């Protein structure tokens, strides 16, 4: 019997929800790391008991937590659970994210654009997204603010930056979005271990084809009125990118405004907003088995971060974009003013495909029928920052 595990990161802790394959009754555990901002949790595809979590705080900085038993117990990598603190040099480096400015492998620590257009030094603030390797449980990528990509190959104990991205040369043109200058999306190409896609708010999307050594912007076709040259190579506020693993060259993007599609691994983008009521939003995801079926949650505008008309509606396109249908069954259709943040939607791989999303109001909604109907699987959590799903055998 299949099982599903939902990992929800919130403003004040993490919650883990488990159900059998019917996805009707859910057991909720948490809060884990109560009181901390849990930006993202994600399980390893190679070992579902291995889960990585980003625990962060404006007071105390960044922590990385790891579970080796499916979320029952946690520890900071390098500080095994139950091990008594020992005298000696500090051995925990799992929260040490240092930009690589070394002459051998690094790039000089430069500046980026600040909100007012002046230059501002690069400063590490937090980990927004953790992306475990598709094949090795001990390898995991971290997207951080200020924007950079790190990797650990020892289960999160030590982190090294892919400095070629930050040092691509366009860094002085990158600028923070409202949430900060974050690298929030990491997509590993299952057909090509040397290819990784990332996205930064507000710089745009980038791709490496050599395992992270060199990067190039992939923003041709994006149009953003909030930058001096709306078609510039750099400066677009990409909110999220999604891929169906069966078609790694086809990417879907929710930009600040505009829903976009690329059929050539990001080399060119076309708008597919079509008949959406508004094309501002944060999340986008793809059906696990139907690569032309995609989901978005339109948000009213960049200044009104809530769903339009007081109605919480997921929009689904079965045609790869342009034609969209509102999915409303089981979702509040009056007096609802929640937001759904960029990492707060995920799909399982059961048949029928399950779709999940979390709101700023603390609900996690699930559909066990590919979006036809919805139900809250937990309500009244702290504001949800991220939702990931593991489909367990």
């Amino acid at each position, binding site marked *: 019997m299949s099982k599903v595990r939902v990992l929800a990161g919130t403003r004040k802790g993490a919650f883990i929800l488990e159900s059998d394959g019917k996805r009707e009754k859910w057991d909720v555990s948490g809060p884990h790391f109560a009181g901390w901002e849990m930006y993202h949790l994600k399980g390893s595809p190679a070992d579902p008991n291995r889960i990585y979590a980003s625990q962060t705080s404006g007071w105390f*900085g960044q922590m990385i937590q790891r579970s080796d038993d499916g979320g029952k117990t946690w520890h900071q990598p390098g500080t095994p659970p139950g091990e008594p603190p020992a005298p000696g040099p500090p051995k925990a480096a799992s929260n040490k994210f240092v930009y690589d400015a070394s002459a051998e492998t690094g790039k000089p620590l430069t500046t980026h654009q600040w909100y007012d257009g002046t230059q501002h030094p690069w400063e590490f603030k937090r980990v927004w997204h953790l992306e475990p390797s598709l094949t090795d449980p001990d390898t995991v990528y971290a997207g951080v603010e200020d924007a950079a990509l790190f990797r650990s190959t020892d289960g999160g104990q030590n982190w090294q930056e892919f400095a070629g991205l930050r040092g691509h040369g366009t860094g002085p043109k990158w600028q923070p979005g409202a949430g900060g200058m974050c690298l929030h999306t990491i997509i590993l190409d299952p057909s090509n271990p040397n290819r990784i896609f990332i996205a930064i708010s507000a710089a745009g999307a980038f791709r490496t084809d050599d395992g992270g050594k060199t990067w190039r912007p992939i923003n041709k076709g994006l149009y953003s009125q909030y930058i001096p040259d709306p078609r510039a190579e750099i400066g677009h506020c990409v909110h999220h990118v999604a891929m169906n693993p069966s078609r790694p060259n086809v990417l879907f993007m929710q930009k600040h405004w505009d829903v976009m599609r690329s059929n050539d691994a990001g080399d060119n983008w076309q708008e597919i907003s079509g008949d959406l009521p508004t094309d501002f939003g944060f999340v986008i995801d793809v059906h696990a088995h139907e690569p032309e079926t995609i989901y978005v949650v339109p948000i009213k505008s960049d200044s009104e971060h809530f769903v339009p008309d007081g109605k919480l509606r997921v929009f689904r396109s079965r045609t790869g974009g342009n034609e969209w249908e509102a999915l409303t069954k089981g979702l509040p259709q009056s007096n609802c003013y929640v937001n759904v943040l960029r990492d707060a939607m995920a799909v399982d791989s059961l048949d029928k495909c399950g779709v999940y999303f979390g709101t700023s109001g603390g609900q996690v909604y699930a559909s066990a029928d590919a979006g036809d109907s919805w139900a809250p699987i937990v309500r009244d959590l702290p504001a949800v920052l991220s939702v990931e799903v593991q489909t367990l055998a």
Partner: protein
Amino acid sequence: MIRVILPHHLRTLAQVHGEVELEVEGPVTQRSVLDALESRYPMLRGTIRDQVTLQRRPFLRFFACEEDLTHEPPDAPLPDAVRSGAEPLIILGAIAGG
């Protein structure tokens, strides 16, 4: 023995209850106490001061003997009562909402 009171979240991280007691060799200063603290509780490294620069994190403050020591130089001697263990060094999160 130097006594240190940690904020709630750092006690949870360090898996300790109540005060922390530390042996500190040499001059008792903010720096030497934090060095000893991070050595004994490595999971706290980076939470009170930056990993590389060792600068105090901006939303943390240091109090002892009803004095605000936050902006004292890191190598300045701590008060006698802290050095003797009569009073604790209090590490406190700034009140900043949330």
